[in-house]
């Protein structure tokens, strides 16, 4: 199976490394970062591209744009892992549309297009007889979307609760365990590379809210936008608040909640008993799904990271290969 890989940052490199080192039967015929690209229908030299990126910051030729790669290379599946833009979804949405119009399958980790334009993109994919998969957009390595669409098929979901942002969970874990202030815990998270220089997107609950929108629209068949999510971040929490929760054997975690029956989508810090399965440590993610037949099911795992996200992307790729591209 031939793929092109758009986005050669931490996630893109993680995917390239996995394909390079594991025998997955996948050939990369094109790849691009924001400033360069490389196309070779016989398969690019992945090792060389990784080395070039490491040394020069470019994965290919600066005259080749990501759109050139999508529009001209020979491939079966587009892997779109460029950085997320939550306002416009671009340039990822255009990359995905172009690939779909060319009759190519798409796998993405990019939250923008899925949160903003899922219906359109999925309709276009159906029209063109191709598959659009996005497991990596929510909770990194946890196969949540696959589990909800396949494993729990036929169940009615009455409620979904989740710790969807590792940065916030790390900060709250440290505030709770060490009595750190929010500022101290954030500084520590930055030093460890768990928080961005501008942490707004994470600590204000926006990242978690986008993941709720994706889950609501894709697996719960609602029609929601970011504006529909009642969002409260963790940046105003005090160590005293965590101590007050601790006195009752509880702690505080940022929880995303969907109640499909009421159409409620909410991200907010919540008081939660320490023994609750959603109380996970550090940067872990956790999701509890309440269903009519299967009862309660909780998934726990790594929500971010280069190799972890690659795991979700590769699982989508192999599922497409088995269903659609067999023999090629």
């Amino acid at each position, binding site marked *: 199976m031939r793929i092109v890989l758009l986005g050669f940052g931490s996630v893109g490199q993680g995917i390239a490394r996995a394909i390079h080192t594991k025998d997955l039967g996948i050939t990369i015929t094109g790849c691009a970062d924001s400033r360069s690209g490389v196309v070779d229908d016989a398969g690019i030299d992945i090792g060389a591209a990784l080395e070039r990126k490491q040394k020069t910051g470019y994965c290919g030729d600066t005259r080749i744009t990501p759109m050139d790669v999508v529009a001209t290379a020979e491939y079966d599946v587009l892997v779109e892992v460029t950085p997320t833009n939550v306002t416009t979804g671009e340039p990822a949405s255009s990359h995905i549309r172009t690939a779909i119009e060319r009759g190519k399958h798409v796998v993405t980790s990019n939250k923008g297009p899925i949160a903003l334009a899922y219906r359109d993109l999925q309709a276009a994919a159906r029209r063109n007889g191709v598959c659009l998969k996005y497991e990596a957009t929510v909770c990194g390595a946890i196969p949540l979307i696959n589990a909800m669409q396949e494993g729990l098929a036929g169940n009615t979901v009455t409620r979904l609760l989740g710790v969807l942002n590792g940065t916030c969970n790390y900060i709250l874990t440290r505030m709770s365990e060490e009595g750190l202030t929010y500022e101290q815990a954030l500084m520590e998270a930055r030093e460890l590379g768990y928080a961005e220089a501008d942490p707004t997107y994470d600590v204000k609950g926006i990242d978690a809210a986008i993941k709720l929108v994706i889950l609501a629209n894709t697996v719960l068949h609602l029609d929601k936008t970011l504006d529909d999510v009642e969002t409260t971040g963790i940046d*105003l*929490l*005090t160590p*005293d608040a965590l101590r*007050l*929760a601790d006195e009752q054997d509880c702690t505080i975690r940022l929880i995303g909640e969907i109640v499909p029956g009421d159409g409620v989508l909410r991200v*907010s810090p919540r008081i*939660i*008993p320490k023994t609750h399965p959603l109380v996970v440590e550090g940067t872990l993610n956790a999701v509890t799904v309440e269903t009519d037949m299967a009862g309660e099911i909780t998934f726990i795992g790594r929500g971010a990271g280069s190799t972890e996200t690659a795991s979700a992307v590769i699982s989508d790729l192999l599922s497409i290969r088995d269903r659609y591209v067999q023999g090629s």
Partner: protein
Amino acid sequence: MKLEMRDTPGQLVAALKPISALGGNIIAVIHQRDASSTAESLDVQIVLELPEGRLDRLLEMLKAEGVNVVRIGEERLLHMSSLILIGHLMHTDLSDTVDRIDRTGFAEVTEMSLVMPAINAPSSARITIRSVNAEDMRKAIDILRAVADQKDILIIEPLEEM
């Protein structure tokens, strides 16, 4: 809630049956022999939980069984939720915030812990609200949310009612 009745032979069984029939939960049966009482007439206390609005029906059923209820204890508010508030709680009139719940008549603030770290720094408080049923609790929390919004207070709700 506590029921007290005269203990004559067979009355205890007769009293317990309707409680479970109405979906009640018996917490304790206290069977205390008083030195002054006679063998055929003892006081029995039953502590029980009963879904709201079924007390009258229970009393009717007990009467039909020939159970003589001497005294009905106080109804307790069984639904409880602890929430944490963060903000300038004193400057925004904490007693008014509490009063808005108490004033409803169907829910009340029964406990509060307040931490005030420094002047001008936001304070944190844990408040416990009790109500007779879940619907009243939901209404009380909605009121608190509106007040918090008005006073720029961050409110942290429990994931589940306790």
